């Protein structure tokens, strides 16, 4: 054993154990619930308003490379597409990466089939733009005067462009990303946001699988323990006892 890594190893072991145990529990019981997410409620509100106004809603993943954020985005897209199918509202998807086109088509089709509306799905509304994603997205938002604007994924400065374009039509905007450099902008311009891991939890809530459940439960447990440690540790330090503070770096 190396020096100063005991607690670190304990954290990793707890993480892995919780991951597998909670995934297995879910496999047996099928039970998982998480708190209500403002972003999901706002998405529904946006689609409802779009239906009233007879305007479409717009979806994009941003320009970032394919990573885990896309996996959460697929689930959230399925949720949005399902609502759109239910209310007969158009959903336009702008895509930058070629590799996510087939996945996106599949996700949208699945949502329409589940609502029994497969005939009203418009395949041409899933649009691949590649490198010209940004101008194409701005153009789509303006031409269609969208009433709702969603962007979930690995976002870069295209998030600002999208917010600005949709703000002109007072669209309800919901975005989410783990990229800390964009969080301030989406928080400033949107009606609701998913902050980092929040979108993974929302995805697990919408469509739970053992892996997704484990991926939410494990960090949840570690975070809970950390919060307790912070409180106890701070109280101990306040009373002049630094045992816990030095212990966790052992």
């Amino acid at each position: 054993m190396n020096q100063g890594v005991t607690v670190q190893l304990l954290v990793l072991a707890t993480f892995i154990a919780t991951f597998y145990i909670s995934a297995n529990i879910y496999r047996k019981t099928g039970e998982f619930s998480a708190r209500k997410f403002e972003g999901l409620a706002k998405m529904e509100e946006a689609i409802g308003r779009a239906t009233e106004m007879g305007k479409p809603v717009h979806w994009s993943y941003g320009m970032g490379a394919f990573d885990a954020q896309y996996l959460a985005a697929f689930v959230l897209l399925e949720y949005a597409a399902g609502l759109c199918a239910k209310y007969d509202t158009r959903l336009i998807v702008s895509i930058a990466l070629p590799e996510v086109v087939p996945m996106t088509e599949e996700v949208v089709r699945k949502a329409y089939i589940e609502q029994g509306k497969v005939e009203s799905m418009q395949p041409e509304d899933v649009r691949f733009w590649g490198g010209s994603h940004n101008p194409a997205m701005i153009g789509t938002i303006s031409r269609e005067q969208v009433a709702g604007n969603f962007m979930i994924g690995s976002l870069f400065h295209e998030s600002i462009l999208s917010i600005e374009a949709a703000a002109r039509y007072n669209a309800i905007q919901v975005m989410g990303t783990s990229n800390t450099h964009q969080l301030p902008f989406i928080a400033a311009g949107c009606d609701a946001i998913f902050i980092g891991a929040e979108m993974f939890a929302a995805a697990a809530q919408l469509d739970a699988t053992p892996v997704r459940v484990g991926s939410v439960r494990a960090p949840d447990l570690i975070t809970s323990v950390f919060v307790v440690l912070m409180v106890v540790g701070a109280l101990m330090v306040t009373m002049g006892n630094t045992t816990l503070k030095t212990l966790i770096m052992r």
Partner: protein
Amino acid sequence: MTFIKTKLPVVVTFVGAFIIIAQYYFDIPAWKTLAAELLRWNVILAAFALALGIGGIVKLHWGRIARRAPTALYSAATLITLAFFLAIGLAQTTRGESYRWLYDYIYLPVAATSYATTFFFITSAAYRAFRIKNSYAAVLMVSAVLMMLQIGIFAAFLPIAPRIAAWVWNIPTSAGMRAVVIGGALSLVGNSFRVIVGLERGHLGGGE
């Protein structure tokens, strides 16, 4: 063959990662040496990977030129620039005089300026995008304005402005970002773990 195509990549991923993790926690001198070697290999593979982007771009722009697309001339500009950099760069590496000229007077100004144009995005977004729609956005904007007032005219007339900005930075900002850092690090642990044990394979790529 299926083993090489689908299982081997997962095995390689796991074994490489396991050696590095094990020697981090346990004192095994031989593994330490091995891990240092693996890290060097990682660096070399990463260096190879820097050239990977060329394939897709050449395919895309060559296609446009072949189709005589309306943007073919621009595509030619991309390919010609790329060819120049590659020809001179491969001949004399970055240590050559001509390559430095290319870097100083082409790559540097376009890279710096392309990023500087985000200044315009921020300007128009400030005016048209950042509508204060709820109390969260209101708090955000107040904090943003306080940060921007820490230098210049306001600091000149209101010496307290920089002190307020410093407080906002040192206390609530550092504290709030700490939660974001902790959350982000846990996400990183989760993602890394899923990659290492092969639950996530998106990076391995499609194909047959």
